[in-house]
């Protein structure tokens, strides 16, 4: 039954994949046409040279052929070439992916590990001072611009700590320049600030969500049953109730899986973190359309994949869906 559900769910993503690639492709062509930056500024290029460049980039062929070529490439992991230097977008992506994953997985893990106990505490102590403090933190956290929070943390822990002669944290990068990255502690120290900023946003949302989900579950009859069975309060909360309360949270976290790639863009820029987001930003500043398009498509496909994984995870966790 699970297999059948999975097959159905996987098949349903195919039109979305086609649609998403079509949208990114069309956005590109409708707006930018076959414009190649820099070409018209170069007086040395003759019209036939420009034609040759267009041919090389496949821009002379009919639109649908271009799309199909584009789609065919994607299937083989080819997200096109840079308009500026002709380099493979996929190579850039895979160069930068590890740094991004290092940052975002840490942030998501931190977010989950901290938000669940915070949400549970809020639910159990509903209406208490702690609950109000957590709520205020969450509402506030949701309104803080991530890039500003990053700047403020750099200001405090890098700039001011240094000024005060205290041990200070690096303001950017994955590792101390010149090292090979073999020093784990050095990497962790670099990771600390950006991961904190990124996880703060998740924390605000997920702790609230866990709280309301937990409140709902705690009022369910089966929680009363568990109490009537003489289960300890800890077992009731952390086994019987939490197991149910995290199911919707899994979907929410699953929806953030695509953020593994895109979620850290602003934070990556602030902390000079050489990840995918920073790559996209750098290329955007250089008006390298094709690279931006390639990365965007790659990220969009990850979103589709993330949604799929979230659904599957949901089905695995919730027997009502698994055996429906």
């Amino acid at each position, binding site marked *: 039954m699970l297999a059948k559900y999975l097959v159905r769910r996987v098949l349903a993503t195919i*039109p*979305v994949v086609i*649609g*998403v690639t079509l*949208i*990114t492709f069309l*956005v590109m062509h409708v*707006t*930018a046409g076959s414009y190649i930056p820099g070409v018209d500024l170069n007086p040395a290029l003759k019209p036939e040279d420009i034609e040759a460049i267009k041919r090389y980039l496949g821009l002379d062929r009919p639109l649908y052929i271009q799309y199909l070529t584009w789609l065919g490439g994607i299937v083989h992991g080819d997200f096109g070439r840079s308009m500026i230097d002709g380099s493979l977008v996929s190579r850039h992506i895979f160069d930068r992916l590890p740094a991004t994953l290092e940052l975002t997985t840490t942030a998501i893990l931190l977010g989950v590990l901290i938000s669940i106990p915070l949400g549970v505490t809020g639910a159990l102590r509903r209406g208490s001072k702690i609950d109000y403090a957590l709520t205020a933190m969450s*509402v*506030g956290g*949701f*309104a*803080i*611009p*991530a*890039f*500003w929070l990053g*700047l*403020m943390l*750099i*200001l405090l822990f890098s*700039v*001011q700590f240094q*000024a005060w002669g205290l041990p200070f944290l690096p*303001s950017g990068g994955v590792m101390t320049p010149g090292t090979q990255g073999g020093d784990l502690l050095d990497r962790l120290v670099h990771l600390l600030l950006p991961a904190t900023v990124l996880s703060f*946003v*998740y924390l605000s*949302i997920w702790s*609230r*969500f866990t709280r*309301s989900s937990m409140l709902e579950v705690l009022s369910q009859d089966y929680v009363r049953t568990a109490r009537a069975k003489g289960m300890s309060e800890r077992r009731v909360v952390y086994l019987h109730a939490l197991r149910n309360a995290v199911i*919707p949270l899994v979907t929410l976290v699953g*929806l*953030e899986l*695509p*953020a593994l*790639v*895109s*979620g850290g*863009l*602003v934070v990556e*820029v602030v902390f000079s973190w050489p990840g995918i*987001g920073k790559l*996209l*930003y750098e290329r*955007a*500043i250089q*008006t390298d*359309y094709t690279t*931006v*398009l390639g*990365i*965007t498509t790659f*990220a*969009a496909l990850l*979103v*589709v994949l993330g*949604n799929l994984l979230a659904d599957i995870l949901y089905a695995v966790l919730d027997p009502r869906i698994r055996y429906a």
Partner: protein
Amino acid sequence: MISPIPLEGEVAVEPVERGRPGKSYWQESWERLRLNRLGIAAGLVLVFFILVAITSPILAALFTHTDYRTIDLANTFARPLSAGHILGTDDLGRDELTRLLFGAQVSMGIGFLSVFVALTVGATVGLVAGFYGGLIDGLLMRFVDMILAIPAIFLFILMALLFKPNAITLALIIASVGWGSIARLVRGEVLSVRTRDFMVATKALGASDLRLIGRHLLPNVLHVLIVYGSLYLGQVILIEAALDFLGLGITPPTPSWGNMLTNSETFFFHSSWLVVWPGITIFLSVLAANLFGNALRDAFDPRLR
């Protein structure tokens, strides 16, 4: 940046009554809202920012006696509370407070325009999809799925790159993604309203589709739009500030709260207040919009408390 949808599950509000919300429904909601002190305070802060945005040239003329473009290279990085500059000056000697006042124009203007466009488009698509169902619904909603599948921040950057935006195009760019989640929300609401007795009865009386949608469905989803509009405003302000910060939105010399932070690492070391002020205004306006949205939601549906 996370998806621009704040806590989607918590937004879904339902009117307390079964039929079309009558006058008393809106009155009761208003009564509840009035008693929510935090919500009213948030609303007032929001009104304050709107007024500042509208009157910023006057305020500048009256209080700071300078224009946001006035460069004074002899007086760069003046400290806060120094002569004539309450909040100090920036790297070009421009008055920080004046620039903050004009920055409100950008944030509020783009914010409200974007919310208006996204709500209008989103509500229309949601109403049509929910009302007609079937193929129309399927196509529209799949399209929404696709739009929302592309990471919003990447799409914003892509479009900002292609359009070289001014304030209006920037608002449209942001709205071009935001309408999707509103359409989803409205459609869901319509589906629950559509089957209620009064809709069936009105249909049986031979009302036209347009009348059914406009006169009967819309009032039933209006409260959802109002709540979501307020929450979405906060998101737009955040997104817009981030794009400005990245140099892909409103660019200098026009001051915006986002682009005032763009090269802040260059003056971190000696003028940290320049990093603090714009962040606080962004934070306060977003916080006000979110809190007001929450208060509206609680007022419309007290059961969710």
